[in-house]
């Protein structure tokens, strides 16, 4: 106990009376190390999490009801929709009719027999434009032209990846339409039905499912496919804020919807590869952070070593006048602890008061996602503990090396 008392006595005064710039420099190193530990892995995970969140916000919403694998549509959809209308925890939902089809542009131009038609395969979604916009905010993603209106006839929105202009890759296996813009007429083929429609707008999102679809009003698609039973293929449900999707999913299953459809939360509907990617990026982040931790430890080791070696004479004097080596070592441990703790606290404030809100408000514009910073508090505190432990060791080892030297040699500066 006495050693701790003396260690604290010495450490407090050494920190307080050492150069301000030295303290600022060491604490800056600790802050940067902390940010490296938390932010790098947080951004890596956030890059994928951003994509996952985008799918949730703009495609599946909180709960998605979809067609069972052995069916072509959700049977008795009006009854399902009636159940949804009765559920008070649901804020809004959008029922979608889906169909596979092809679209063709430039079909009025004269072509040689050997020329390939300008076609692309697309999923066609029939939506209630207003309901869809309430659930997924689809209208925000119009990059050219206008959003659908409920009464639109023979008008479609086309996903960006169905246009050469916006398709990020140039591959012969990835067909897209060339020379199209809002107002261009294209030919839409669903099975053996063909209709000429006008592009009303182009939609570009970070969600590939949206970029690969053609949207039209539900009434239009129903008339095209001749579906008069009102059976839909997909219903995206947005819940009221704070409602746990699992409880609503269970309630919907309890009401028998699972007999005619798959009821999944956004998390249930996440493909396994996305979960694997999150784990992979988290692992990568941890690897990078580990290197950061080693670099920080070496930095602290060097700083404390230089500090201890330049103070070797005084360490010798302290021992000479009877201060125990342990007390001197503990003083360096306290100093390392102080620097690591201060750096971490500033780092935590920077992460949670500045970076996280800032990046959430202005996500990083990665090509395939709006990257956010994922920094769960528990994981951050664990990394902070790691940093403090590593720093304490990095501070203790050089202090011990110097303290163990012969007392008189230290006082006289002999090697």
């Amino acid at each position, binding site marked *: 106990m*006495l050693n701790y*008392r*003396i260690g604290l*006595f*010495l450490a407090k*005064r*050494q920190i*307080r*009376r*050492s150069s301000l710039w030295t303290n600022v420099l060491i604490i800056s190193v600790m802050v940067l190390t902390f940010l490296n530990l938390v932010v790098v892995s947080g951004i890596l995970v956030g890059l994928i999490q951003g994509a996952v969140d985008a799918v949730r916000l703009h495609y599946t919403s909180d709960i998605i009801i979809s067609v069972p694998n052995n069916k072509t549509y959700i049977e008795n959809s009006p009854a399902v929709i009636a159940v949804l209308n009765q559920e008070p925890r649901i804020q809004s939902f959008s029922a979608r009719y889906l169909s596979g089809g092809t679209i063709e542009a430039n079909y009025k131009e004269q072509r040689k027999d050997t020329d390939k038609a300008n076609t692309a395969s697309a999923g066609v979604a029939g939506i209630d434009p207003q309901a869809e916009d309430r659930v997924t905010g689809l209208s925000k993603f119009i990059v050219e032209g206008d959003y659908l209106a409920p009464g639109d006839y023979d008008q479609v929105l086309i996903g960006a990846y169905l246009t050469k202009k916006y398709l990020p890759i140039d591959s012969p296996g990835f067909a897209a339409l060339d020379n199209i813009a809002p107002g261009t007429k294209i030919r839409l083929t669903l099975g053996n039905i063909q209709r000429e429609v006008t592009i009303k707008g182009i939609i570009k999102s970070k969600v590939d499912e949206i970029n690969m679809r053609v949207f039209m009003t539900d009434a239009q698609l129903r008339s095209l496919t001749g579906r008069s039973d009102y059976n839909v293929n997909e219903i995206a449900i947005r819940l009221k804020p704070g409602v746990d999707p699992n409880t609503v999913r269970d309630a919907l299953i309890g009401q028998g919807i699972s007999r005619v459809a798959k009821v999944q939360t956004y998390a249930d509907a996440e493909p396994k590869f996305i979960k694997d990617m999150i784990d992979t990026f988290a692992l990568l982040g941890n690897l990078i952070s580990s290197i950061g931790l080693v670099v920080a430890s070496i930095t602290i080791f060097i700083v404390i070593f230089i500090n201890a070696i330049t103070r070797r*004479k*005084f360490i010798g*004097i*302290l*021992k*000479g*006048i*009877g*201060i*125990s*080596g342990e*007390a001197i070592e503990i003083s360096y441990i306290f100093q390392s602890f102080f620097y690591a703790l201060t750096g971490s606290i500033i780092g935590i404030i920077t992460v949670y008061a500045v970076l996280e809100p800032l990046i959430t408000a202005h996500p990083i514009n990665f090509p395939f996602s709006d990257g956010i910073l994922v920094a769960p508090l528990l994981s951050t505190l664990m990394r902070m503990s790691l940093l403090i432990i590593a720093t304490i060791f990095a501070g203790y080892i050089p202090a011990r090396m110097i303290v163990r030297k*012969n*007392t*008189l040699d230290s*006082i006289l500066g002999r090697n």
Partner: protein
Amino acid sequence: MIETKNLKRSFIDGEVETPVLKGVDLKIETGEFVAIMGRSGAGKSTLMYQMSLLDEPSSGEIIIDGQNTHLMSPVQKTKFRLEKLGYVFQDYALIPELTAVENVVLPLLMNGVNKKETYKIAGESLVKVGLEKHLHQLPSQLSGGEQQRASIARAIAHQPNILFADEPTANLDNESSRTIMKIFTDLHRDGQTIIMVTHEEEYGRLAEKIVRIDDGRIIGIEKD
């Protein structure tokens, strides 16, 4: 009382062994003020380092107040130095981040004295050496003479059995040196055992016994 028996100390550099103390037998009684004098390289500081347990002799014994220090572990020696010995170094050796009073407080705290009491004792000790107006100044804010007085205050605050001083006036001007020596003579008058290494005859003569050393051996002892 401190006694050395056939005390030897050699330094080895590679295969070359340089004997510095070549068998010193010396007895200093409690309350004595002893000056160890000799030319540069004679071995006077080395003798003091052995007697003050700052260094390990190559052979021989040092007995302080009946305790054979040869048998002590390094930790026991540190504790012994803390409790029984006091040091005044040539270059003051104050800890630069600690104020004058904190420098004095430190060994008292290590001795287990409570914080309030340590500051009281440290204050009294600094008053004794005339530094009552400089208690809260850092060593860098004190003159050389004031720093040496603070160093003496630190050395005597815990009332050591023996006070060792290694060339305490070597870095000081005449006036400061005389002040320091006056403090030593006052302490001696109060019964403090003092062993001081010096090469200055004027100050050596203030001690009641001068041990003259040359080439690692005692060549004479002069009593007042």
